[in-house]
């Protein structure tokens, strides 16, 4: 086996290790992205409301 695939295979444990890290990364990103998107939504709604008031 080449060096790189050996590194990712981790002696047969790679699938367990990498799935754990992947799932965790998704959860962590989700926990920051969700409030960020909700904040953008609030700001956009506010901007729309303001434009309507001006017209």
């Amino acid at each position, binding site marked *: 086996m080449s060096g790189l695939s050996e*590194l990712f295979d*981790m*002696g*047969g*444990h*790679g699938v*367990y*290790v990498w*799935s*754990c*890290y992947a*799932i*965790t990364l998704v*959860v*962590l990103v*989700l*926990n*920051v992205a969700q*409030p*960020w998107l*909700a*904040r953008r939504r*609030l*700001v*956009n709604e*506010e*901007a729309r409301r*303001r434009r309507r008031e001006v017209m």
Partner: protein
Amino acid sequence: MKWTFFHKLGSPKWFYDISGRWLPWFAVAAVALLAVGSVWGLFIAPQDYQQGNSFRIIYIHVPAAFVAQSCYVMLAVAGIVSLVWRMKLADVALKCAAPIGAWMTFVALLTGAIWGKPTWGTYWVWDARLTSMLILLFLYFGIIALGQAISNRDTAAKATAVLAIVGTVNIPIIKYSVDWWNTLHQPATFTITEKPAMPVEMWLPLLLMVLGFYALFTVSLFMRMRLEVLHREHKTRWVRDVLEKLS
């Protein structure tokens, strides 16, 4: 101590301003700690002589479990503050921290299950540590559901605070489960009183990951709380000013 400090602490506007200043620093710290800790834990730390490479899961499993439990203690403290002193910001903290705690418990349980397969030969056993962590997840679900089911926010604040306080009975059970009962789960990795049983090159990346998880928890909590404050105070002058500047 002056009471003005306490009032300031409870003021949503004060929180919004100060958290806005701290947020970028916590974000930078979280990304740096998690990046360095992951690379170190995955590629540089030596393998475990018994578990081989599967032990590298420890670098996310243990930090997630730490945050899951301390987040619950934080909910209970916020619950007491919100019940006793009627501090609105404490209820905001309780409401916003609960989903993050639930996610962290989910990560701890799932990575534990995946780690269990190559190590114990099974994904799940009904032993004390695993079962009490599952109860923690259900407690988080209960607090979230209760908060959403009650439309009056003052009533919801009281109900969720009481549930959060009552549920803390589970925290010492999780902590001591590995000592009180026979279990497959290994005992605590870090204790305050003793030196870690691992060599430095194994526990140092773990320490970085724990700090990184706490930093990321703070980032997510601040973002959620700031949003919640904007929603709750949307009729006030200062929120109108903030939104006007943003939009």
